[in-house]
């Protein structure tokens, strides 16, 4: 494994790992606050039980998110000093705000976790909500920074140096809005479906059904609304990509030849050698329409770009299809959920479907990030700096890779094991 590949792989799984915990940390406090709110309003002990169950989950996942986020802030320099040397001054601003928001989140979570008997109930409730708000804000700042890598702005690039730096313009780059909107909804959606699905599973097991039903309703209300909004936001995001990064869009769609009235492919595997799409179902004109609201619009294909500037087409395309397919299914499930919620009837087949969808929101989330990151290659700063020019000169990066791979695999295993123990302990309590 060469150093560049090892560094990319390390960054890839560090981000892929962190994003799960970050998504939980910035959305689950809202579910928790909703349950806590109902407890304070209705004095129904089940809501208190639920708040505390979720709180323990948040505590564990937040801690893993905090330390894996620390790893990332160091890795920016450990793996990509060539990038940070220039980018730090340009795009540090959202990180400095993220630091502030994250700091507030850390204070708020300390207050909420340990403050049950030490604060007035509604003040205590407010600290829980603050965990969510500041977490959500951190997420927006970090994704805005990523947006800059896709649509760099706020500087002039002269002879390999950034001049006329404007950090505000860099933060509000052309990709920040659609990316943050898309990601924040994705987090709500992924966590809503995962938590809702776990409670659907526990409901089906037959114990403490009324509690699990309450839990499922809260979590999925967030998840369903986000899932229904997501296809529209996703469409908007794709239209922005079509303008900002046509090569990425072409890779996402497996679109090799520039043409008017371009077809959209459902499924299929792009064959890079013959520059054709295999086994896909073409829908003529639809890609042009989706990208530019016009069935006859010209969509740039990969043929517009020199071969060495192509992103890995197969990975980008398949990840994109996975994301879209799961997103569509979740939007449908979301509509179904809202209908069933009005009737308050919960047929077993629907609950079983929810169980099946426990991991799907996260799969879609990861797939989406693969599209964003792999689809930007070979660039680290789109159109400005190649990833290979940013990598650290330190040799032997594969050992770094193995080390962190081992640590993160172990942590994933332990986290799942711990969450399982939480659920087991809760179940045991309901039995006895």
């Amino acid at each position, binding site marked *: 494994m060469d150093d560049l590949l090892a560094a990319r792989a390390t960054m890839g799984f560090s981000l892929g790992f962190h994003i799960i915990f970050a998504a939980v940390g910035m959305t689950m406090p809202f579910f928790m606050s909703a349950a806590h709110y109902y407890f304070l309003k209705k004095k129904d002990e089940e809501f208190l039980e639920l708040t505390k169950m979720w709180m323990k989950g948040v505590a564990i996942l937040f801690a893993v998110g905090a330390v894996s986020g620390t790893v990332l802030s160091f890795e920016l320099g450990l793996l990509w000093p060539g990038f940070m040397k220039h980018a730090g001054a340009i795009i*540090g601003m959202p990180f400095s705000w993220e630091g502030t928001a994250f700091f507030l989140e850390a204070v708020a979570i300390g207050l909420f976790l340990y403050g049950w008997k030490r604060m007035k109930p509604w003040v205590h409730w407010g600290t829980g909500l603050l965990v969510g708000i500041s977490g959500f804000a951190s997420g927006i700042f970090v994704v805005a920074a990523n947006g800059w890598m896709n649509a760099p702005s706020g500087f002039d690039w002269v002879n390999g140096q950034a001049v006329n730096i404007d950090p505000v313009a860099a933060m509000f780059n052309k990709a920040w809005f659609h990316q943050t909107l898309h990601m924040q909804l994705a987090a709500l959606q992924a966590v809503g479906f995962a938590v809702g699905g776990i409670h659907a599973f526990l409901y089906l097991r037959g114990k403490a059904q009324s509690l699990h039903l309450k839990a499922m309703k809260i979590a999925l209300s967030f998840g369903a609304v986000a899932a229904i909004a997501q296809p529209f936001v996703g469409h908007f995001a794709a239209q922005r990509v079509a303008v900002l990064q046509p090569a990425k869009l072409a890779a996402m769609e497996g679109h090799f030849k520039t043409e008017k009235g371009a077809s959209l492919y459902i499924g299929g595997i792009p064959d890079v050698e013959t520059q054709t799409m295999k086994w896909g179902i073409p829908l003529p004109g639809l890609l042009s329409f989706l990208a530019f609201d016009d069935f006859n619009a010209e969509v740039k294909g990969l043929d517009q770009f020199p071969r060495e500037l192509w992103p890995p087409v197969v990975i980008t395309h398949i990840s994109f299809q996975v994301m879209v397919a799961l997103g569509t299914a979740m939007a449908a499930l979301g509509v179904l959920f809202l209908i069933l919620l009005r009737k308050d009837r919960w047929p077993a087949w629907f609950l079983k479907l929810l169980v099946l969808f426990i991991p799907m929101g996260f799969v879609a989330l990861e797939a989406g990030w693969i599209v964003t990151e792999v689809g930007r290659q070979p660039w680290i700063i789109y159109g400005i700096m190649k990833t290979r020019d940013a990598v650290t000169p330190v040799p032997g990066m594969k050992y770094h890779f193995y080390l962190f791979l081992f*640590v993160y695999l172990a942590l994933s295993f332990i986290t799942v094991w711990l969450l399982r123990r939480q659920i087991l302990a809760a179940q045991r309590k309901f039995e006895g």
Partner: protein
Amino acid sequence: MVEVLLFFIGASLLLYVLLGGADYGAGILEMLPAGEHRHAQKKVINEAMGPVWEANHMWLILVVVILFMGFPLVFTTLMTSLHTPMVALLLGIVVRGCAFTFRHYDAIQEPHSQKVYTVLFAASSLWTAFWLGVIAASLNRGAVDLTALNFYDAYVAPWWGLYPTAMGVFVICIFAFLASVYLVGETVSAELRKLFLRRAYFFNIAVMVSGGLVFAASAFENRYLFTAFFRNPLTVSMMAMATLLFVLLWFFIRKSRTLLTRAVAAGQVALILAGWYLLHAPNALITQQGPISFYDAAAPEATLQQLVVALVVGSVFIFPSLFYLLKVFKSDSAQKF
């Protein structure tokens, strides 16, 4: 602007050492045999650290963010030349934060898994503190070689040696000393107070001995540092004051003045940290090719301005909420003032 940022870096580092450092120290204390008090000690540490450790950890993140936004050259040079100690530090941070949280929030509390968490928490506290010291020493050691052509000179020599090792041990002792002094005020049990006082005595001596070792090691391997130290009257007087304050510290401990004791211990550590920084101010890093000063490495003015705005606005939110956090959780111990 650079001065304002230097103030924020200094303040964040100080708070990280005083607050986060004590959390490391608590973990280090759990390595020592405590016999029948083991369980009670764990409980006190859990209660003292639980609500605050995430916030205390944030000071380090803040330093990292200020460095990479305001002084990118310092950040990237550190992350390249000191790659290995940084990775070691990160590893420790990950294991430590997880082990501490998991120990508390594992839904099924059983002796075996609790022991594993405790061992991991304690060992990683010691480990991380050590590497913090190594990194601190490497900043002013002058062994970073920006033009090195072989692996050893470029990535090992900057941090490998007696002086960084001694500094690592020194930082371990300082953190354990701070934790012992703070923890005395966190419990009402006379037995436990005695235990923490014994620890405070022990680490008081350990701080002095290892501090001497740091000087001996730096003199042994790097004359520049040693002479620079004695040439700077401010640094010398700070170290002298830090040492003399031990008399006051033990006076307050005898009188059971919890807050004053903590304030003196914190003051001593602040003096040591300030003295260490003054040795090479306003340089961030000494390399074989000369020093890299914060002024040379600073980002353009527009960036620095935005960074200061974020820090000032952030402070307006963070400090009141931090005070509130301390008020909610630490007011019991303050009553013994």
